[in-house]
């Protein structure tokens, strides 16, 4: 059964529609990540779940109970803010116990809970410091501690890592993941960082302009994006989108790419969807992840789905773990993810293998996946 349900949710600020009919449900213990570019409404959605914003229409259910009219403190949630929002006039222990004090928890119990959570987060030596005496990473930990003391039904995270430097961000990401595994509490997490979304989520919801683009597991979002926006937004480097033509050749569906020299390259489709049939003879957009194009020899077991083509290498960008190559394909610059030890050099013509098993097609007009 779904633990958190957002049902046809709408939010308007005056005449501006910020959320347009959002439907999401998360099972108990799930990790929902709301992702999208800035201004897409993801933080507003989180605030409506928290109760910090009212909703215009639709409803929110937590553990089967409609919470639309409940005050934030009555929803049994805890929130970690982007700025951490630690009370500047209180020390760490006070910051963590303030909520319990407001709920009338006896002092002895408050101290006990603070001590337990502080031990869990290894912030025992910081308990008597003021927030201004803490580093960014320590403040982040305290903000998490303040949420943890509550033992809520749902944790809400509003871009909690965006103020940390890159190294610390990766560390804290792992930390959050471990905490989630250990506590099993349902989480709603807002970020604009698609890597955070992919690594943390059990369910990803992609938003754009207040419209839900797709909800699904990280693998679904990555492999079968619902539309061009999702395909482009998720993944780094993002998915290559190449204009092409859908044709039938020898009884099978093929995608034809126009080359710079006027010739066409044909790539067969594996398991084309029924919708694709209607597009035979028409323009489509071919979506290929960078890792679907490489220059390794055809010795792999799935070699049958890999198809050779020649392309001009424009530049190569070694990242250490692998090398990205910009190649010319279908009149577009396309990114290929090659092995780090690849022999590819800028300016040369080279033979690449394209793995068509994960290729996706989009309607160029509606931008929806076929």
């Amino acid at each position, binding site marked *: 059964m779904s633990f958190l349900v957002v049902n046809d949710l709408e939010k308007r600020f005056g005449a501006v529609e910020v959320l347009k009919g959002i439907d999401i449900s998360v099972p108990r213990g799930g990790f929902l990540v709301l992702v999208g570019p800035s201004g897409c409404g993801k933080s507003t959605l989180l*605030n409506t779940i928290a109760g910090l914003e009212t909703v215009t229409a639709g409803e929110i259910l937590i553990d089967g109970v409609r919470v639309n009219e409940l*005050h934030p*403190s009555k929803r049994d949630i805890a929130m970690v*803010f982007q*700025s951490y929002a630690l*009370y500047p*006039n209180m020390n760490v222990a006070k910051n963590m116990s*303030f*909520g319990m004090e*407001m709920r009338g928890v006896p002092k002895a119990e408050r101290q006990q809970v603070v001590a337990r959570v502080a031990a869990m987060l290894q912030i025992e030596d910081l308990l008597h410091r003021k927030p201004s005496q803490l580093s960014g990473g320590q403040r982040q930990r305290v903000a998490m501690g303040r949420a943890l003391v509550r033992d809520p039904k749902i944790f809400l995270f509003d871009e909690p890592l965006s103020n940390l430097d890159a190294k610390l961000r990766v560390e804290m990401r792992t930390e959050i993941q471990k905490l989630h595994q250990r506590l099993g509490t349902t989480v709603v997490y807002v970020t604009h960082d698609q890597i955070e979304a992919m690594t943390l989520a059990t369910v990803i919801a992609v938003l754009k302009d207040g419209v839900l683009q797709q909800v699904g597991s990280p693998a679904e979002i990555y492999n079968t994006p619902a539309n061009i926006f999702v395909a482009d937004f998720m993944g780094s480097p993002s998915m290559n989108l190449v204009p092409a033509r859908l044709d039938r050749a020898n009884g099978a569906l093929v995608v034809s790419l126009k080359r710079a020299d006027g010739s066409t390259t044909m790539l067969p489709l594996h398991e084309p969807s029924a919708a694709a049939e209607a597009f035979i003879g028409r323009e489509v957009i071919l979506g290929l992840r960078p890792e679907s194009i490489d220059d390794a020899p055809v010795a792999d077991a799935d070699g049958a789905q890999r198809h050779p083509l020649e392309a001009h290498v424009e530049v190569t960008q070694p990242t250490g773990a692998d090398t990205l190559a910009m190649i010319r394909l279908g009149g577009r610059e396309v990114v290929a993810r090659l092995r780090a030890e690849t022999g590819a050099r800028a300016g040369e013509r080279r033979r690449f293998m394209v793995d068509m098993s994960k290729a996706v097609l989009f309607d160029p007009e509606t931008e929806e996946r076929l």
Partner: protein
Amino acid sequence: MAANPIETAVRTGRLTRALIYAALLVFAVYYLLPLFVMMVNSFKELDEIRGGNMLALPELVTLAPWIKAWNQAQIGVQPTGLAPYFLNSIKMVVPAVVISTLLGALNGYVLTKWRFRGDTLVFALMLFACFIPFQIVLIPMARVLGFLGIAGTTWGLVLVHVVYGLGFTTLFFRNYYAAFPTELVKAAQIDGASFLRIFYRILLPSSGPIIVVTVIWQFTNIWNDFLFGASFSDFDSQPMTVALNNLVSSSTGVKEYNVHFAGAILAAIPTLLVYIVAGRYFVRGLMAGAVKG
């Protein structure tokens, strides 16, 4: 100290520096001279003032003018000195400052953290209060005080000063709280703190600098006010400023300059004290939030 030079935007040479200090010194003397004249003459006998140099130090130091100004001088009809009026001023200033500061803080809190439709208009109208000349409100205010039945009382004066000061105190606190992170209020809401609890547990403890600014501002303005004091007070509620005027401008008898000087200094002491005690926060508070850091 050479290792830790004072931070400054402009490096200046020795000569420029000397010129700057010379100019500052001239201005300091210029502004301190009246105080000096008042001081030295308040310790002189009246004969010595009449016969001699205003700038000279007293030949014979006497405290008599001070004692007379404090509790013997003829003010109006009674020979009470300034003491009862001093007390009147205290009874008027303290509640007026406390109430106007608290209300200003509450206004600032609501106008920045509990925004409502038309809040900027409300704020603009409150700002308007800062620009209304005192004289315009005299007659309407007299009617209001009469209607409320507190005309001529200390509480009437408190009300006048609270109403008049609210524009300024609201402006100070609104601008201070505008820079106060709203996420803190949200976090406190989730923690279950009520409207007032958030105010006095989260915002007020962080408002030290702006409270000091507001208190100094309000204290000086209300203490120094003459017009409202002269217009809305009775014999038993007249503030210090009105009594000082009555003392100095009485047209009967000899002009006792030494007593007048002593009385004027007595009237200025509270505001001076407030400046000396809290003044260093004043500049700091006015600058707070101007530069991020």
